[in-house]
């Protein structure tokens, strides 16, 4: 065949051949607005939830937990309503995962009180004796770094002002340190005393976990 003696033509032709499938299954869907579904019920993450999401990414939680419930009877029974595209409008990056060593988390928000998550993150085996999840108690010893939070929300396109971001952070801090906070006892137990007055990385992670699937519940209730 003549082409195997013409390298430049070969490069061009092979580039064209790999581009066909790429254009149809990747570039076209990228340009179709129907693949960027939105719902007025799905709200962006708050400042602290976004920081919690970044900790989820940093610790590689997505290596063991998926965030997509498939439209199968047993999955809906186990986790809740199946996942819809609208839910991920603010997910940058998406965190669907590819392996369930632990359960799916897309409907985790509101399933348990914060106290459950503090205890579970600190020592998963204290709630599920045979769990193989690593302990994450050390997250409570780390102060939450919010130096870049505003910039993060800007890049994510959440549309918050710097003031709104600061208010959200202050609001979460006030909520968690309030004597009336429903999970105060457990938070006090897992958090080192010197960190109790401020937000920790574990606080942010719990806030993120509690956000998962919350908006969808209002979306489905409205339908």
């Amino acid at each position: 065949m003549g082409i195997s003696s013409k390298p430049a033509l070969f490069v061009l032709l092979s580039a064209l051949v790999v581009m066909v499938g790429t254009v149809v299954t990747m570039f076209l869907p990228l340009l179709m607005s129907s693949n960027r579904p939105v719902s007025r019920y799905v709200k962006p993450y708050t400042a602290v939830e976004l920081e919690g999401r970044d900790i989820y990414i940093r610790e590689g939680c997505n290596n063991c937990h998926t965030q997509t419930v498939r439209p199968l009877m047993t999955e809906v029974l186990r986790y809740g309503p199946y996942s819809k595209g609208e839910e991920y409008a603010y997910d940058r990056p998406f965190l669907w995962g590819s392996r369930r060593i632990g359960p799916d988390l897309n409907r985790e928000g509101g399933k348990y009180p914060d106290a459950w998550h503090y205890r579970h993150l600190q020592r998963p085996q204290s709630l599920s004796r045979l769990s193989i999840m690593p302990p994450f108690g050390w997250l409570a010893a780390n102060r939450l770094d919010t130096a870049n939070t505003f910039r993060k929300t800007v890049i994510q396109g959440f549309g918050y002002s710097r003031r709104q971001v600061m208010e959200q952070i202050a609001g979460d801090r006030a909520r968690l340190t309030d004597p009336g906070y429903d999970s105060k006892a457990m938070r006090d137990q897992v958090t080192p005393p010197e960190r109790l007055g401020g937000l920790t990385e574990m606080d942010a992670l719990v806030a993120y976990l509690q956000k998962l699937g919350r908006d969808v519940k209002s979306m489905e209730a409205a339908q």
Partner: protein
Amino acid sequence: MDDSTYEYRIIKGFAYSALFWLIIGLTAGLWISFEMFEPAANLTPWLSFGRLRVVHTNMLTFGFALSAIFATAYYMLQRLTRATLPFPRLARAQLYLFNTTMILAAASLMAGMNSSREYAELEWPLDILVLIFWAMFAVNLFAILIRRREKQMFISLWYLIATTVTITMLHIVNNLEVPVTLFKSYTVYAGVVDANIQWWYGHNLIGFIFTMPILAMLHFFLPKSTGLPIYSHRLSIVSFWSLIFAYLWTGAHHLILTPIPEWIQTVALAFSIFLIAPSWGVVINAYYTLKGNGEQIQTNYLAKFFIFGVTFYGLQTLQGPLQGLRTFNAFFHFSDWVIGHVHMGAMGWVTMIISGSFYYMIPKITGKELYSIRLADIHFWLILAGQLVLTIVMWAGGIRQGAMLKAINPDGSLTYGFLDTLTTLYPIYRLRFLAGAIYFAGILLFVWNIIRTVSRKPAAAGA
């Protein structure tokens, strides 16, 4: 052309790098497989499963496979074009940059700097370094093709060209991100679109790292090792073009039953099934190459690495499309079944072909005989046994867990809680660790054999 004018030092450099990262990647793999039945092994944040798993995958995909690809590519390119390497100093710089990037990659992933996109976890400064050393390789590849002294380009060169073109595109498109700091960035895509692009990347990264360049090795080193020409040139041509055409359509078979549009899923499944044909075209071509000389599988220690390797390629390319089908996918996806699938590919197909290629190539470039064929034989049987036990127990685990997750009581409630389905796998996880250890022992023999070969005193002239 005189053999001494070829640039061989660079090949040795990349071959050594491959072996080094192989040991690192497998050590990480053994560690995380231990963590899966002994959570106390999550000693520090740096060693916790979520961080170490990506060290395992990255060091074996990029550290090991990619540097083995560079090593063999620099060998094949020079032999097949009968030209010297155009820019040896550029290749040298590429070797240093490659290893620097891998060291930074391992350290940054353990520090949690991780963009979460599978097989594209590295943060943006490292993405740029990867692009630079990839471009350095491409410059040498295209330049040597231009100055080649052999008019016809052999099949292996086609696969290397397709790899170079496609990986460049995949890497750039999937890693478009906006930096927050030096260590953190966000991708420019969101939600459904992001998932679709990531798996277009993820699937084809496997295609164009773990398949095409390995096929280049198979087509070159199998005939070299056996002294037999590839059975059918026409079959090679048809397989090549159908493989690189169809591969790019199939990424979404990783996203079956997720919120991405159904038509993308169905198109991906259709092309996945189609891919069985060219994949098996390659397998049949390799088998028939030994036609009439089947005894080589016993008498020639190199032949069995290639023939067993391509057999696992054949099994995997049957299994892959089938597990994409919605019925099977509903049952197996997210389970250890898929872990078994990928390990048969990586430990069976990829590593066996690279092993055979190195055993042929290293003595050629050093002018020394292999230190021990007996050790190479033991290496072969150990990695074969380790791989088979590992993949089979993982499949068994996937079937078991899939069935338990699906089980329903007569009253319509779920029979098992999630944790029940997981704890039943712990004995399997212990077996997996054992299988990994057997495999690792085989790899240690491989590395030892190569080191001893290179450090041998040169053979006496005329001996």
